[in-house]
């Protein structure tokens, strides 16, 4: 199934650390969206995927890499990525729906602003 057949595709980032969530509101903080040193921010392309299947992907491919249970996922639109001059690279590893947000200018102060805006655009969906 090719990516970007719609004007905007839903992407999801799974959040395991309560420190990345605001206590007062169901919002995600910017550092959850800052790219790692590799410049590849791991997300899943969840457009058209049912709720159970989204969380099953997390349980099978993301949770095993962490030491904590998943708390929420942050859903955001690929248009928010493009608005920041970033790109979505669907690499299909370890799951066909896995993708990375790429194109960050690592070392630029713009990266933090981009992460702030992506975090602000994300909507929290609590884990079941």
């Amino acid at each position: 199934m090719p990516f970007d057949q719609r004007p905007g595709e839903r992407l999801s980032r799974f959040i395991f650390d309560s420190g990345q969530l605001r206590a007062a509101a169901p919002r995600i903080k910017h550092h959850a969206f800052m790219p790692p040193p590799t410049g590849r921010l791991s997300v899943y392309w969840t457009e058209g995927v049912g709720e159970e299947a989204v969380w099953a992907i997390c349980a099978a491919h993301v949770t095993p890499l962490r030491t904590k249970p998943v708390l929420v996922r942050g859903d955001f639109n690929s248009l928010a990525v493009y608005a920041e001059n970033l790109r979505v690279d669907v690499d299909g590893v370890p799951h066909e729906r896995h993708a990375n947000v790429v194109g960050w200018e690592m070392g630029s102060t713009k990266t933090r602003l981009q992460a702030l805006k992506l975090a602000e655009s994300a909507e929290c969906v609590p884990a079941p």
Partner: protein
Amino acid sequence: MTTLAIAGPHGSLAGSWKARRPGVSDAAISIRDVITRAFDDFSASAIGQARFLEPVTALRRLAAECSQPNWNAEGAEPITPATLSTAEEVLYALPAEVPTPEFLPEPTGRIAFEWYKGRHRIYVLSVGSDSALEFAGLFGRGNEVHGRFNFSDLLPGLVLDHLRELLAH
């Protein structure tokens, strides 16, 4: 009253003093001791606890939690003692009227000072192991800033203007 007495227009005198302690003459050492005692007394007060001791404790806890590579299981770089030291200097340099920020670990090993006033109203000051501080802010849709400056004891007026803009609304 103590807070007002030590706060300057662009930062905290106590903070600057704690961050840098120049002077080697007898007079300088004597003055340093007096100010250090005053600072320590202030730090032990209720206001001082909230202003310095509690945030410093939070910073040190954060640095300890993120002191190893890959602390976020996504390849993050560790927060080094040098970064923690810079963060404490920046904390001391914050003017008294600026609320204590929240401290967040960034994947690059930097520590972010974050002030959040609501959706699309956020300011982040990021501290690393050197004197280069980075900032990014959203002051409502379409009103955003980002940049870098060299920190030396006092925060520049630009950052204080950003914080006033954020906190004024």
